[in-house]
C-alpha cells in the first residue's frame, strides 16, 4: 500500500534530527508534527512524548529520522540513524533525507518484521501547520462513539486535522526555552501571542459574571407581576421596541453565559451576536451624536407638528373628494355624508389632540432619543412606533371601514341565501333549504336591496382606507426589515472570510509540485475556503 507522509512545510529547513508525530495505521499514513534535534537523550524523549500523549490523548511517538545534510559526507550518519530505529522500536521507521538545497528529497522505510519486503510508493504531502491547526475541519470533540467507529467514520483528512489541532501543547515550547528537548515546528521561532487577546481573556470572566448578574436583575424586574396587567401587557405586545429590547436581552444572555461554546457553530453564533451588538451600539452612538448636535431635535420637533397637520389636511381633502363624485362614480348621498362627516370629526379630534401634545413633543423626543445609545435597531424600532402612533387615525379609519364592509358582506350573503330560499345551518356547517314566511321574505328582500345599492359607497371607502393603511404598513415593514437585517447579519463570519479565510475552511486542495524520477511524489495540501 502507498505510504503517505504529511510533512509540515516549516520543518523543511530544520537541522537533522528525529521526527515525532502520529502514525495512523488504518490509512498507512504518518502525520509529522515536529523535529527533535541532536543532541538528545532517548529516555528523556520518550518521557516527554508520554507526557504529551497523556495531556492531548493523541498517540504521539517517534516516527523516523530526518537528515538535512549541507555537505556531502554523511556515510556514518545513515548507520547512526538506523540504529536509532532500533532504540525507538518503531515499525516502520521512516527516513527522509534532503541534500543541500535540493527540492527533491528521498524517503525510504525500514521494515524489520515485514512479510513482503517490496518497495512501496511514498507520497510526500506538505502542509502548513498553522493553517491546518486553525481551520476546523476535524470532527467535533464530543462525539461519544467508540474509537473504532471514529476511525471508520471520520474521513481520512479530518483525522489529520484532528491530530494537528489536538497537539496544540506540543507547539507551545519554542527554541528559547531551556528544556532538554529542542523541537522545530511552526511556532519554534517564537510562540505567537497577542497581549490584547490575553488581557481580554483574563478580563472576560469577571465581566461575564457581572453581566449575568445585571441581566438577571433586569429580567426579574421585567417578569414582575406589576407589568403584566392587561392594558400594559397589551401595550407591550404592540410596541415593537419592547420586542426588540427583549430580543437583545436574550442575545446578551447567550453571550454572557459561563459555559464555553461546545462546538464550532455555537462559537460562531456567539461571536456573530457579539460583533452585531458592538456594531449596533456603535452606529447608535453615531446617530445620537449626529442628532444631538446643532439642536436637530428641536428642528425635528418643530417640523413634526406641521407634518401631522399637513397629513390631516390631505385626509380632509380626500374625504371631501369621496363625499363628492369620486372618479365619476355616483355615491349614495346620505350614506356618503354620514360616513364623511364621521371621519372628518375624527380627524378634527386627532388634530386637537396633537396640538395639545405639541409643547411636550420636544422634551419627549429628547428623552426618547437618548435610548438610541442602546443600539441603532432600538432607534429604528422607536421610529417605527412613532410612525404607528402618528398615523393612528389612518388605522382607526381602516378598522371602521373594514368592519362596516365586513358587516355589509355578511348581511348581503345571508340575505342572498334568504332570497334563494336557503339558510346557513350552524350545527352542520352547511347550507340547507328553508321555508320562510311571507313577511320574512318581504323584509329580507327589502333589506337585501338596500344593502346592495349601498355597496359601492362602502366598498369605495373600504378600498381607499385599506390602501392608505397598506402604505403605512409597507413603510413600517421596510424599517423592520432593516432591523432584522442588522440583527441577523453574520458580520463576524463575513470579516473572517475576508481576513482569515482558512478558519472557514470548506475542504482541501492538492497541488502537484515538481517531480523527479525515483523520488517520492510531492504534493502541497492547501486549505480551501468557502
Amino acid at each position: 500500500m502507498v505510504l503517505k507522509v504529511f510533512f509540515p512545510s516549516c520543518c523543511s529547513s530544520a537541522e537533522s534530527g528525529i521526527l515525532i508525530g502520529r502514525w495512523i495505521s488504518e490509512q498507512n499514513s504518518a502525520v509529522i508534527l515536529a523535529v527533535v534535534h541532536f543532541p538528545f537523550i532517548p529516555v528523556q524523549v520518550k518521557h516527554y512524548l508520554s507526557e504529551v500523549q497523556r495531556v492531548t490523548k493523541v498517540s504521539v511517538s517517534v516516527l523516523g529520522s530526518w537528515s538535512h545534510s549541507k555537505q556531502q559526507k554523511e556515510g556514518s550518519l545513515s548507520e547512526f540513524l538506523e540504529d536509532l530505529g532500533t532504540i525507538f522500536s518503531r515499525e516502520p521507521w521512516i527516513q527522509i533525507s534532503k541534500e543541500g538545497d535540493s527540492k527533491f528529497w528521498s524517503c525510504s522505510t525500514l521494515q524489520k518484521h515485514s512479510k513482503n519486503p517490496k518497495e512501496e510508493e511514498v507520497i510526500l504531502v506538505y502542509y502548513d501547520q498553522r493553517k491546518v491547526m486553525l481551520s476546523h475541519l476535524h470532527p467535533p470533540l464530543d462525539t461519544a462513539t467508540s474509537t473504532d467507529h471514529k476511525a471508520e467514520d471520520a474521513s481520512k483528512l479530518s483525522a489529520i486535522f484532528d491530530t494537528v489541532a489536538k497537539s496544540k501543547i506540543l507547539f507551545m515550547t519554542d527554541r528559547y526555552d531551556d528544556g532538554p528537548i529542542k523541537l522545530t515546528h511552526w511556532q519554534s521561532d517564537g510562540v505567537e501571542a497577542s497581549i490584547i487577546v490575553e488581557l481580554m481573556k483574563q478580563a472576560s470572566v469577571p465581566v461575564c459574571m457581572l453581566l449575568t448578574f445585571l441581566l438577571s436583575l433586569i429580567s426579574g424586574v421585567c417578569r414582575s407581576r406589576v407589568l403584566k396587567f392587561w392594558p400594559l401587557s397589551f401595550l407591550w405586545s404592540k410596541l415593537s421596541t419592547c420586542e426588540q429590547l427583549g430580543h437583545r436581552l436574550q442575545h446578551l444572555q447567550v453571550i454572557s453565559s459561563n459555559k464555553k461554546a461546545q462546538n464550532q457553530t455555537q462559537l460562531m453564533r456567539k461571536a456573530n451576536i457579539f460583533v452585531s451588538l458592538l456594531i449596533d451600539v456603535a452606529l447608535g452612538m453615531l446617530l445620537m451624536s449626529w442628532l444631538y448636535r446643532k439642536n436637530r431635535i428641536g428642528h425635528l420637533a418643530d417640523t413634526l407638528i406641521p407634518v401631522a397637520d399637513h397629513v390631516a389636511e390631505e385626509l380632509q381633502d380626500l374625504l371631501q373628494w369621496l363625499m363628492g363624485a369620486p372618479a365619476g362614480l355616483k355615491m349614495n348621498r346620505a350614506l356618503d355624508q354620514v360616513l364623511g362627516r364621521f371621519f372628518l370629526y375624527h380627524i378634527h379630534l386627532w388634530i386637537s389632540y396633537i396640538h395639545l401634545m405639541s409643547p411636550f413633543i420636544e422634551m419627549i423626543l429628547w428623552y426618547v432619543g437618548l435610548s438610541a445609545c442602546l443600539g441603532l435597531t432600538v432607534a429604528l424600532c422607536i421610529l417605527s412606533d412613532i410612525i404607528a402612533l402618528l398615523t393612528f387615525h389612518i388605522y382607526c379609519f381602516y378598522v371602521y371601514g373594514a368592519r362596516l364592509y365586513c358587516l355589509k358582506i355578511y348581511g348581503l350573503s345571508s340575505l342572498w341565501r334568504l332570497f334563494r330560499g336557503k339558510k346557513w345551518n350552524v350545527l352542520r356547517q352547511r347550507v340547507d333549504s328553508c321555508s320562510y314566511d311571507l313577511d320574512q321574505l318581504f323584509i329580507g328582500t327589502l333589506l337585501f336591496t338596500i344593502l346592495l345599492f349601498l355597496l359601492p359607497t362602502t366598498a369605495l371607502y373600504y378600498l381607499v382606507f385599506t390602501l392608505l393603511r397598506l402604505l403605512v404598513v409597507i413603510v413600517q415593514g421596510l424599517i423592520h426589515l432593516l432591523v432584522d437585517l442588522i440583527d441577523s447579519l453574520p458580520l463576524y463570519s463575513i470579516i473572517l472570510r475576508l481576513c482569515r479565510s482558512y478558519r472557514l475552511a470548506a475542504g482541501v486542495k492538492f497541488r502537484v509540485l515538481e517531480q523527479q524520477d525515483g523520488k517520492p511524489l510531492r504534493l502541497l495540501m492547501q486549505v480551501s475556503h468557502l
Partner: protein
Amino acid sequence: ERRYRSASGAPIALRRRQHSASCRELAVRCPRLQLRSLSAATSAAWLAAYGLFVLSENSMVLSAAIFIMLIGLIIYLHFVKIDQESLLIIGSLGIQMTSSYASGKESTTFIEMNQVKDVVINEAIHMQKVIYYLCILLQDPGDPQGVSEVVPLFQSSKPRLDCLIEVYKSCQEILEQRKTAPQSS
C-alpha cells in the same frame, strides 16, 4: 496532447500526465473565446445603442452601453467562460476536479478516496440530444451497495465518447490499485 471534439462539435484537447505510479492528471482544454464572436457581439450592442441615441438624443445611452459591455465582459470572463477542466487522481488520497476560468480564477473540489465508489460513463438527455458524460459515484455511508450522489465531470467542455473512454481507462487503472492494495499489506 490529443485533439477531440466536444458534444456540440467544437474542438477540444486532452492532455494526460502521469506524475507517479498512483497519480495522474487529465486536463481537457475547452475552445477559446473567439475574436470573431466577441467583435460581432460588441458591434451589435454598440449599433443598437447608437440607434437608441439617434432616437432619443441622449448621450447617456452611449456611455451606459459602453459601461454595460465592459461589466458584462468582465462577468462573463470571470464567472461563465471555462478555459480548462482538469481531473487529478491520487490513488489512496482522492480525486480533485479543477475548473479554471478565462480570467484566471480556479475553483476546486476534492473528494476523498473512501467516499468514491466508482467512476462510470453515463448517458443523459441534454436539450434535444443524448450525450455521454463521465461521473463519479459517491458511496452511501450507511449502505455499502448504495450510491449517495452522482458528481458529473467535464460539464462545460462535454467531450465525446472517444475522449471519455481514454479518461475512463486512466481512472480505472488507478482505482483498481486500491482494490488490490488492502490485500497485500
